[in-house]
């Protein structure tokens, strides 16, 4: 088990984000899209527990996939929950094709840990890029 596996279990809730949709509509899959998509919002309690400040890097590992995104605290979010816009980043975490359901597209179980890496570049998770 890697050190990152000893992390904090989170349920990621996804939602349709107008800012991300507009970035995609106007500019396609570029920097604007990555900047808005590679973000997870966490409870202040979880931010504190992990020693994270706003903008800190956090790794999210699902059963078979792994990404690094930026963490931000939001007081309306409950401990144990992360909120992300539905995007290629959340899609990348969903690798259990056999048990995939519509509801499962909106709720993703991950283990979170502080990371020293930069957010995962979009070109590493585009369709066709190898999964871990």
């Amino acid at each position, binding site marked *: 088990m890697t050190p990152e596996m000893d992390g904090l279990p989170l*349920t990621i*809730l996804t*939602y*349709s*984000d*107008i800012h991300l*949709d*507009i970035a*995609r*509509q*106007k*500019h*396609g*899959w570029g920097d604007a899209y990555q900047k808005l998509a590679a973000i997870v919002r966490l409870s202040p309690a979880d931010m504190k527990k992990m020693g994270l400040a706003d903008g800190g890097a956090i790794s999210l590992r699902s059963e078979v*996939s792994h990404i690094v995104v930026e963490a931000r605290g939001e007081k*309306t*979010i409950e401990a144990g*929950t992360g*909120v992300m816009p*539905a995007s*290629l980043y959340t*899609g*990348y*975490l*969903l*690798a*259990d*094709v*056999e048990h*995939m*359901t*519509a*509801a499962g*597209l*909106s*709720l993703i179980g991950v283990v979170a840990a502080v990371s020293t890496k930069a957010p995962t570049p979009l070109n590493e*998770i*585009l*369709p*066709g*890029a190898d*999964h871990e």
Partner: protein
Amino acid sequence: MSKITLTCSGCSCFCDDIRIEAGSTLKLIENICARGAALFASSRDPARRGRTRVGERDVSLEEAVTEATHLLRYARNPLIYGLGSSTIEAQKTAIEIARRLGAVLDSSLSLGLGEILKSILEKNLPSCSLLDIKDSAGLLVYWGSNPAHTHPRHLSKFTYYCYSDYDPSGWQPKNVVLSSVDIRESEFTSLCRPKFKLKPGGDLAFLEAVLERGDDLPEARQFRELLMKAGFAVVFCGDGLGRSLGGDTNVFCEMVAKANSVEGAKVAVIPMLSEPNLMGLGRELFEETGSVGSVSFAGTVRHGPECSFTEQVKGAVPDVLLCVGSDPYAVFPQALMSRLSQADIICVDSFTTLTSERAAIRITTAVAGLESEGAVLRMDGEKADLTRFSAGPYPAETVVLQRLLEGLG
């Protein structure tokens, strides 16, 4: 300079009060929301439109149609996906193509609100026009929906903010309660009083509790009383509710029926459809097949979860995917879409998408409501007509699909 009025095709509100200077280059647009403005602006960006091509080669429409027809004619298991942004004329043609090919046809309705829409079309759920709401409904409930992100003018044009009488502060309409049921708080839920926050996946348990079954939840009791005392109430269902219920809408229908059994109560349901003309597609398919999506035309017409895009791709069933105005590579998990690696993709779209970039054949079409016309249905089922603001170099989607149909013989 005179101004003309357009209907926006940016979402299923189809706002019909968009004002533009005649002959302008889409500047000085009045009344448009951020979502509609992004659609209009990107329609003028050549980098976002792309070219009609076969492989890496730019081709004429005729050549692309000929190649696409060839692929479709010899497909063993063709799958048609999308059509949520298409006009009714294009949707009807696509259904005819599916029938001719014996193809499976599905849309994003299978991911969320399909069964709720079907219940509305079957009259198991009462609905109403958005125009009936102003100054009449006493309760507006957004369930699993955040209109600020999905349908930005919904509140100002059709519901909460279009009411006539406001409180003395001028901030909130009188005589109407704005409420939400959701699994997370948002800028929208902060406007709602009361708001009901559920656990993820907790919609069914909440519904059971509202029906006085299962656990007695104080919030469910409060919601029940709110609904029973509202008089005219409208529940706006979002994908969050549809996904959570997982295709079984019986308990939701039961709750609405029970609320409607109270004397003086009228509870109506309107789906917050995520693509502009999913109502049009759902109704066309329902009238033809009895289902709003996930339909197979191979042999006897049948429908069910096994005909959904997700299940078809899971099984790597399709050998040819005809994708119309939709971008499954941007929506579905990459691990799922990798199972389409052996399939040939024909993409008919107005914009460059992840799907169009992976397509063997890509046909760029006019943007409906700007460069081509046609009929659509708003989320409440009311018909709207999209008009053409300016001629562009791209063919209408209906024309492309009609040529594909003719090519199939």
